[in-house]
């Protein structure tokens, strides 16, 4: 369709003006390398897709270019001149705009004002020309084909509309490079078409667009070239038309399994947890599954598919609006986590820093937080007993620390996670929900976790394992469920689950083809 406007024949690549070059971009978070030596050239006037699994490094790369993160090493060149992108604002001044998945907005201000803020560097006491702002906003929104009252506040707009406002902002700011991080996820097919039309128009004006998406159809329909990331490395940059879907998926996955994953024997017992028709509007819909004693059920899917929401609903953090949860065949009402704990559930949350640890409190207190009756049999805390229990957990889980009195915030991520798992093991849970248990954990420690998870299942516990690392999910799970956009889209027995099959079920594939569904 747009091939005629493009002239990136293989040989002409060298002639094309390069807008932005990245050389040797490396990024570490807390000692963990999430991006390694990435070299990448973006041409002026192209739409370039970044593809990769969750955590492959594509978003991190985008955020470095847009000034959200600083690279640990490496340089960026804009029009062959070295640039330091110190902040998002600096990026904007250089003509680089990042459109976040969760758009930044001032909810109480009007659309037109959100569009104007930060763009004009006028005098602080200069007049705000409302009529002009409104006219400008109307024309921008008209370009995007959106009929909306630009004087209404942002609060209450759908994510899709907020996104459109962000895109309009980028249009207005004359950005040379617009990075869109999964912009289409909340959009309706019609809105997607509009967005694509705008994107092509911008490209034809000579601007560049970086498009991060999981949807291969969209990438194929829109993008001139793709770059594929895996495990923090750039794997390939290729013209889209030279790759088949199967090739792209193979490049995205195919990562080797790190750490020893024991084959755990499945001696599956009766149903421990049964979830029936669980629904929370806007998050997930009609989720039903069972987990048996001794079984590890993996829950795969892309970020934002609703996996964590389901886990939080089961544990009572944000209960579902409808549907039932049955523990050992009994339907139970779980209205808050305390109810879930009483039913023998345990939950290792994904967001360890906020929902897991008490950062400034001692490791021992963190470990015993869920078993007050154990450390205080008569209501008064017996510190000796607590210490013994904590040290016992420390030894069993091989937690590396100086003292159990040390604040848990001083430990490494892996050791913090072990302490959280230790906390729940003390409650002797029958059902464990592990949400990304190995995220931010060193490779060596990961293997220890795999062994522990296997052993826990072998001791007759039911485990729901949420993981974005496919190899881990496949190696550990007896059964793999896959979610996509709030729905269960796959249920594979151990033998049938492959990286390809899971990925196919996880990738949403309906928007471009045109299954008309209203945006959330």
């Amino acid at each position, binding site marked *: 369709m747009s091939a005629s406007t493009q002239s990136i024949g293989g040989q002409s690549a060298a002639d094309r003006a390069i807008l932005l070059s990245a050389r040797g971009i490396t990024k570490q978070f807390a000692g963990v390398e999430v991006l390694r030596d990435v070299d990448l050239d973006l041409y002026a006037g192209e739409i370039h897709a970044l593809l990769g699994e969750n955590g492959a490094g594509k978003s991190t790369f985008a955020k470095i270019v847009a000034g959200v993160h600083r690279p640990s090493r490496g340089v960026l060149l804009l029009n062959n001149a070295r640039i330091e992108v110190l*902040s*998002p*604002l600096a990026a904007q001044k250089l003509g680089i705009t990042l459109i976040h998945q969760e758009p*930044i*907005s*001032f*909810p*109480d*201000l009007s659309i037109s*004002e959100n569009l104007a*803020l*930060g763009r*004009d*560097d*006028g*005098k*602080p*006491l*200069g*007049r*705000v020309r*409302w009529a002009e702002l409104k006219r400008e906003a109307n024309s921008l929104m008209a370009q995007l084909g959106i009929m909306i009252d630009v004087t209404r506040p942002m*609060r209450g707009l759908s994510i899709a509309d907020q996104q459109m406002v962000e895109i309009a902002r980028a249009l207005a700011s004359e950005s040379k490079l617009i990075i869109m991080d999964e912009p289409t996820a909340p959009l309706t097919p019609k809105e997607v078409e509009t967005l694509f039309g705008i994107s092509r128009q911008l490209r034809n004006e000579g601007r560049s667009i970086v498009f991060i998406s999981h949807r291969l159809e969209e990438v194929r329909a829109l993008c001139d070239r793709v770059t594929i990331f895996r495990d923090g490395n750039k794997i390939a940059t290729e013209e889209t038309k030279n790759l088949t879907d199967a090739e792209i998926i193979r490049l995205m996955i195919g990562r080797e399994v790190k750490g020893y994953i024991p084959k755990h024997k499945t001696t599956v017992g009766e149903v421990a947890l049964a979830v029936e028709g669980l629904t929370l509007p806007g998050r997930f819909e009609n989720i039903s599954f069972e987990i048996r004693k001794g079984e590890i059920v993996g829950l795969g899917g892309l970020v934002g598919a609703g996996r964590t929401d389901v886990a939080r609903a089961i544990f009572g*953090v*944000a*209960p579902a609006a409808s549907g039932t949860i049955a523990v050992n065949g009994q339907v139970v009402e779980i*209205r808050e986590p305390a109810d879930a704990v009483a039913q023998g559930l345990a939950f290792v949350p994904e967001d360890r820093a906020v929902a897991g640890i008490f950062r400034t409190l001692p490791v021992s207190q963190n470990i015993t937080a869920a078993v007050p009756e154990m450390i205080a049999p008569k209501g008064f805390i017996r510190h000796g007993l607590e210490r013994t229990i904590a040290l016992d957990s420390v030894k069993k889980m091989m937690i590396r620390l100086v003292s159990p009195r040390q604040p848990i915030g001083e430990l490494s991520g892996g050791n913090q996670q072990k302490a959280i798992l230790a906390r729940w093991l003390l409650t002797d849970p029958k059902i464990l929900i592990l949400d990304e248990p190995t995220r931010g954990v060193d490779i060596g420690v990961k293997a220890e976790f795999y062994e522990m998870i296997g052993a826990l299942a072998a001791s007759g516990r039911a485990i729901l394992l949420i993981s974005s690392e496919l190899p881990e999910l496949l190696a550990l799970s007896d059964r793999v469920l896959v979610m996509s956009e709030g729905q269960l889209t796959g249920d594979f027995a151990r033998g049938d689950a492959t990286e390809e099959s899971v990925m196919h079920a996880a990738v949403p594939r309906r928007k471009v083809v045109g299954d008309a569904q209203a945006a959330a």
Partner: protein
Amino acid sequence: MTIIALLRRREAGIIVMIVIFSLFVGVLQPRFLTSETLRIVLLAVPLVMIAAMGEMMVIVARHVDLSIGSILGFSSIVAGMLWRDHPGLPVLLGVVAALATGSALGLVNGLVVTIFRLPSIIVTLGTLSLYRGLLFFYSDSRQVDPQYIPRDIIGMSQTSPIFGIPWIIIVACVIALATYFFLDHTRLGRQIYAIGSNPTAAPLRGIRAAPVTILVFVISGALAGVAGVLYASRFGYVNPGITGVGFEFTVIAPIVIGGVSINGGVGSVGGTALGVLLLGAVSVALPVLGVSGFWQNAIYGAVILFALVIDRSVRQGGLKGLLARDAA
């Protein structure tokens, strides 16, 4: 739903409330509905109106200034003592001194809040007391008696340049209009809303939150200083133990009822002004109805709580969402 929709346009809601309230009082006590009452109400509100304009900016920026009563008292005493002790100096100098005092005290609030990133309510609870104590020191606990308040200042509450409207009402109107222009029509004004609406995003749009926040506290202090001068004009004396005591609630209550959200980012000058008029009418009506003035505090407290609940329910999308279980 219609109630919520009406309250969404808070200004309309308040006008309706003022009308209903006046009619209600008028039926019970017909002498309430006279131009004399209007005059009393209008004379009662300028102090509150002026201070409310500053406090409103602070609340829009997602802070609170509890110290304005003490700032008002301090500014007022500084001006009063200048007039008393240096009768030869121009009267205007006292006004300037009051303004400078208010700004300086507001500056201290702003600096402590922004540099140490402390909750402004606690900081200004401290300065509320600190400034009041200093004011006793400074004034030697002595009242500035009526004979020392310059004739021109007293006259502001009585004489009129135009249509028989006293000066203090005109001053209040000018300040309200200026605030309206500043908040609604200048970039800086809009930045205050942006900071209150989403403080973390403000720097991403190039807004320097710290200096703007400090400025807002300075303006609030300065306007409390102006209110201090008007206090001297209206009441004809300044007393360190009385002037401005408890004034913060008199000011905060009409602001929140006027639709300024305690969560920042929301609120209009019009709403605030109408809120001031409504509560002004209430305070004038109480004695007319034979209700003791003791009710005033309880009403102000209830008004603040009521406004908090309304604000919450508007955000939550109706009263039904109000009691919904939280998700985090």
